């Protein structure tokens, strides 16, 4: 299976725990004979690197100035080079007559590129939530967090499967974004190494979908 992982951080860039999480995921997938293309946002070292079998494509945000350090404009402008690199990867494998099977995106920052890649190439996508905006902003209703909640909501609607780390976060997602999504939320507890098998079984669900 060929997996296109979209993430906002990957080693050596490290802002939170997503970096380690994605790193473990990608390398364990390679050990299990899957092909991993990883697109990561990294302003400091754009380019391609093969890290022990993981094809890492680092892209930079073309817009460096963001008024009032707005994370929203940052996320949207960053989403364009990410999806452009994703499209390049898809076209590269199409030329070799190979498919890209599934997109795995992490957090709301990568929801926009995942949605557009899904619409353009009809590739299913899996969305992992590490946390949700309702908790991060302590339920504040500023325009910024409403916008981020809208993006998370769009991500849940558009994704084919959602992964959360704990049963508690699953229930919180259902509480915020509606219990109608219960059927597509999977809990994968990312401790140790074997959880990657559970992620692969989630991929199998969406790839086998008609």
């Amino acid at each position, binding site marked *: 299976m060929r997996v296109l992982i979209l993430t906002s951080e990957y080693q050596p860039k490290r802002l939170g725990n997503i970096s380690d999480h994605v790193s473990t995921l990608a390398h364990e997938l390679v050990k299990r004979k899957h092909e991993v293309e990883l697109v990561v946002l990294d302003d400091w070292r754009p380019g391609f690197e093969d890290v022990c079998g993981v094809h890492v494509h680092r892209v930079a945000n*073309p*817009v*460096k*100035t*963001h*008024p*009032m350090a*707005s994370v*929203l*404009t940052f996320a*949207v*402008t960053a*989403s*364009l080079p990410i*999806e*452009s690199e994703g*499209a*390049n990867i898809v*076209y590269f494998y*199409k*030329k070799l*007559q190979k*498919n890209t099977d599934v997109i795995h995106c992490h957090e709301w920052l990568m929801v*926009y590129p995942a*949605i*557009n*890649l899904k*619409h*353009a*190439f*009809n590739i299913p996508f899996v969305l992992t939530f590490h946390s949700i905006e309702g908790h991060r902003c302590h339920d504040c209703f*500023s*325009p*910024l967090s*409403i*916008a981020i909640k*809208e*993006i998370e909501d769009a991500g849940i609607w558009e994704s084919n499967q959602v992964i959360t780390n704990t049963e508690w976060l699953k229930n919180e997602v259902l509480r915020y974004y509606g219990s109608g999504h219960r059927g597509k939320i999977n809990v994968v507890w990312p401790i140790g190494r074997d959880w990657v098998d559970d992620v692969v079984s989630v991929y199998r669900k969406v790839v086998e979908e008609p």
Partner: protein
Amino acid sequence: MRVLHLSWEFPPRIIGGIASHVFDLSRALARRGIEVHAMTCNFLGAKEYENIDGVNVYRVESYAAGDSFLSWALRMQKNMERSGCDLINFIKGVDLIHAHDWLSGVAGIGLKNLYRKPLITTMHSTEYGRRIGIHNDLQASINEIESWLCRESWRIITCSYYMRNHVSWCLRVSENKICVVQNGVDVNKFSFGFNYWGVRNRFAHGSEKILLFVGRLVPEKGLDVLIEALPNILSNGIDAKIVAVGEGPQREEYQQMANQYGLANKILFVGHVDDWTLRALYRVADVTVVPSKFEPFGIVALEAMAARCPLVVCAVGGLNEIVDHEGTGLKVPVNNPDALAWAIVRIIRDVGFKDWIVSNAYQKCMWNYNWNNIADWTAGVYGAVLHEYYTGSWKPINKV
């Protein structure tokens, strides 16, 4: 040939000049036999899909939430891009993507890379020009987005040679990438029967000469220069009145300025008016004044020419190319109230001269700024880009 136009405004949603430009251009292209699909923001009361004179118009959901105009604009474009993907899949591909300004250009960049089709961008204006410099982070960010858009575009279209030069240095792109295609005007829209005094009396007394100003009330449009010129005009014994059409943040300031001169009754802020009234105003006005400090093209000048209204403009930007001094209007230096007053007085006093420049201007409109010609030029740009595209190597792979 199938072209997808992206624009953040399209009638009935009208905010600036892009709406009418895209409306007229897309219809003229459709008349020429090009299949045109136009994607734009939704608007209360407008249909999600309609076919206007052969142009397929799609209005997509535009969000409301966001912490600033910039983030709203960007998120709206991501939404437009998603709907664009669905549309392109539905109509089975497009040949070209044509974006208008950065407010739809970001969606254009996305679609270009996802479908590997050439992107053509019309730069109607730049942030640097609109604000006369880059003063804060918001403007710097928009400037960077515009520069990025120019980098990603296969060709850039500007509407004047002035803008070609401006875009080239301000957004750091080569002039080789930039084509000039002027704006157009439909002269037939301005010939209709109406009650002359019925319209005129709504805006001025019978004895007053109407000086028409059309534009947003922002510093770059320079209404303050016209207000400063007003005492000079009045002292020449001409009973003139400014009729200012358009809204904007500087309205209070201009109102106060007129009050300080004691001329509050000689300036009328009309706000937004409907299309018919605006065209009738051009017909009844004695002079149309365009005192802009920055003007990429100056569609107002073209409309005045089409309505046979004499024209006084500042010699700046695109206006410099539209108006010939003492041929189709009068040009004065930028930011110079005395020169502006001199030109206005000259046109009002010398009726023979006025008739001469008005008829010259009308002829120029008919021949140079005709939408059919402009559609031909635009189609020429499309043809050149498609030729380069088909002979190049950057393409999607059709076989899977």
